[in-house]
């Protein structure tokens, strides 16, 4: 994207003035190099989002944004139901409540290095990953509805997790007002055998080491010590979320046309929050959120079980679990008064600053952990929500590195075996059923995650706390 198309407000803040049908401006947070790397489609899509009814403040773009579906990936937009605001299936995405969790172990990297090969093999056996993998859990109709209503709380009740985890998950591990009865039979069928599976693509389970600490006080509060090992899991609501996204996108295309909504892009399909379709989508989307929360809790439990086999005394504690494909009801200060808004984050992470009442007591003084997945070769970051993020972006930050090249281009440039061997030579073990999948996810296929998080920090969205380096990577 040519920066000359934008109004530069400061080194990391750019604005697209409202023109035509835009109700609000678009605000992009990124340094000039990241802006230049962004597809022109990001500006177009952010401007399109700004035309939707009931949008409040601005259509925001995070530093890792790229071309998405209707909304840019890395897009944030809040809608006021009292101003005719809408909810959009495309604004949440197909992988509803896809997100990241990080668990601390207290283990020193040297302890893990001694058993690294065997640990990688055990994790690969314990974590079903990739196309065609089989989970050990099959849900009947009653269990499916209980899972969709209960989320991670349900997983803990079933013995796949620990009660102490729940306060470290958004919404206490259970999205309220979930409506399993609004989830189609086809979506449930797609999920019947998928609980406790990782999926494929950019989803992963990693054993990581804390390689750099930027904010020692926040790192202490988060339980992150230099040289210690953590477990990070990135995955979402699997087939159920995809099916719900697919079905409601189609329904909202028809509903928007019927309601006379003129949409610049069919993928922006949406429905008024107060409408029948809008209410049904919200109920189904919250059920899918619970599916994602339950799935990450189960995968965390599997990882715990493996670690305890190797290290019987290990205490695996959930640092935080945060989703980055969501629509959540939140109260935000807008022009000095609190308003209840439906905040869409499509490939963007909630980033509550210090003092937010929804944070668990142990984290409230510091702020919310913001977990940023990088690529398997370059590492990930833990950030903390900045006090200014509320005013800057409805308390939102980036979610990852973002791709720099297509999957096919990556497979032309690297082979999976070459990537696995190169990473092994650097001390990173990759286990994956698909060498083509590894090639598609090659570290070089991603943008520099360090530049993304630095831009987020400079923009006042979230502050860097620690950088995590990969040790073992389980890929689908």
């Amino acid at each position: 994207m040519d920066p000359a198309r934008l109004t530069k407000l400061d080194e990391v803040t750019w604005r697209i003035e409202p023109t035509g049908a835009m109700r609000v401006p678009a605000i992009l947070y990124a340094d000039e190099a990241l802006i230049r790397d962004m597809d022109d489609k990001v500006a177009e899509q952010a401007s399109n989002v700004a035309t939707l009814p009931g949008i409040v403040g601005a259509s925001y773009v995070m530093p890792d944004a790229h071309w998405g579906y209707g909304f840019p990936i890395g897009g944030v937009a809040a809608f006021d139901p009292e101003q005719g605001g809408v909810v959009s299936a495309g604004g949440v995405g197909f992988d509803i409540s896809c997100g990241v969790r990080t668990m601390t172990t207290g283990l020193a990297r040297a302890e893990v290095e001694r058993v690294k090969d065997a640990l990688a093999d055990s994790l690969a056996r314990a974590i079903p990953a990739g196309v065609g993998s089989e989970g050990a859990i099959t849900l009947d109709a009653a269990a499916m509805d209980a899972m969709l209503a209960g989320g991670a709380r349900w997983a803990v009740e079933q013995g796949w997790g620990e009660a102490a985890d729940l306060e470290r998950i958004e919404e206490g591990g259970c999205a309220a007002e979930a409506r399993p009865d609004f989830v189609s039979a086809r979506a449930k069928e797609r999920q019947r055998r998928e609980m406790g599976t990782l999926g494929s693509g950019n989803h992963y389970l990693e054993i990581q080491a804390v390689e750099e600490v930027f904010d020692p006080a926040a790192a202490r509060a988060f339980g992150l010590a230099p040289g210690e090992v953590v477990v990070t899991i990135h995955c979402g609501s699997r087939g159920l979320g995809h099916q719900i996204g697919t079905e409601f996108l189609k329904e909202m295309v028809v509903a928007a046309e019927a309601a006379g909504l003129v949409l610049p892009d069919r993928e922006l399909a949406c429905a008024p929050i107060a409408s029948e379709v809008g209410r049904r989508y919200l109920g189904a989307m919250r059920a899918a959120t619970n599916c994602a929360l339950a799935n990450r809790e189960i995968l965390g439990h599997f990882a715990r079980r493996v670690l305890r086999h190797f290290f019987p005394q290990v205490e695996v504690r959930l640092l935080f679990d945060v989703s980055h494909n969501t629509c959540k009801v939140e109260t935000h200060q807008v022009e000095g008064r609190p308003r209840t808004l439906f905040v869409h984050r499509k490939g963007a992470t909630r980033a509550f600053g210090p003092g937010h009442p929804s944070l668990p007591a142990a984290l409230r003084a510091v702020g919310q952990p913001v977990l940023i997945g990088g690529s398997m070769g370059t590492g990930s970051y833990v950030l903390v929500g900045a006090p200014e993020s509320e005013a800057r972006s409805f308390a939102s930050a980036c979610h990852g590195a973002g791709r720099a090249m297509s999957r096919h281009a990556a497979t032309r440039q690297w082979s999976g075996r070459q990537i696995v061997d190169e990473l092994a030579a650097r001390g990173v073990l990759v286990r994956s059923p698909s060498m083509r999948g590894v090639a598609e996810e090659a570290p070089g296929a991603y943008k520099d995650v360090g530049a993304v998080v630095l831009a987020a920090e400079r923009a006042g969205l979230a502050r860097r706390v620690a950088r995590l380096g990969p040790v073992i990577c389980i890929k689908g």
Partner: protein
Amino acid sequence: MPTGRIEATQPADASGESGWEHFPHGADIGVRGWGPSPARAFEQAALALTRIVTAAEVRPEAEVAVACEAPDLDLLLVEWLNAVVFEMAVRRMLFGRFAVTVEGEGGSGGVRLSGRLWGEPVDIARHAPAVEPKGATCTALRVAREPGGRWTAACVVDV
């Protein structure tokens, strides 16, 4: 039509009358099929969908039937590809052969599709499946008759 660079192309027959290709879209992949009719183009688009997952042979060991309908051909393509994604997911199968019939003129009557899919269960060792398609999208969605008379059917698939 935001096609980007063509990334993989496979004419399905010697005449080049039918075939498919992939085109890039950020983290995801676009599929495009072409042929002498919408039905043939839809079959080729489904083959392109399978080729997102595997480059290996997919044996026609079992047959699955699907049916779907939509207000127009564009949305019918999304419905068709999503029906294939659904069968891949719940049966843990890959499909390598497709036979499609399309009926209807659109408008108030809509358009209907009957499809048969031939494939086999995923064999992780032999198929080395890469990424899992999550769903077909309305992005870069286009079903059209080109000036030369050939039909194309394209959209981006979220993976």
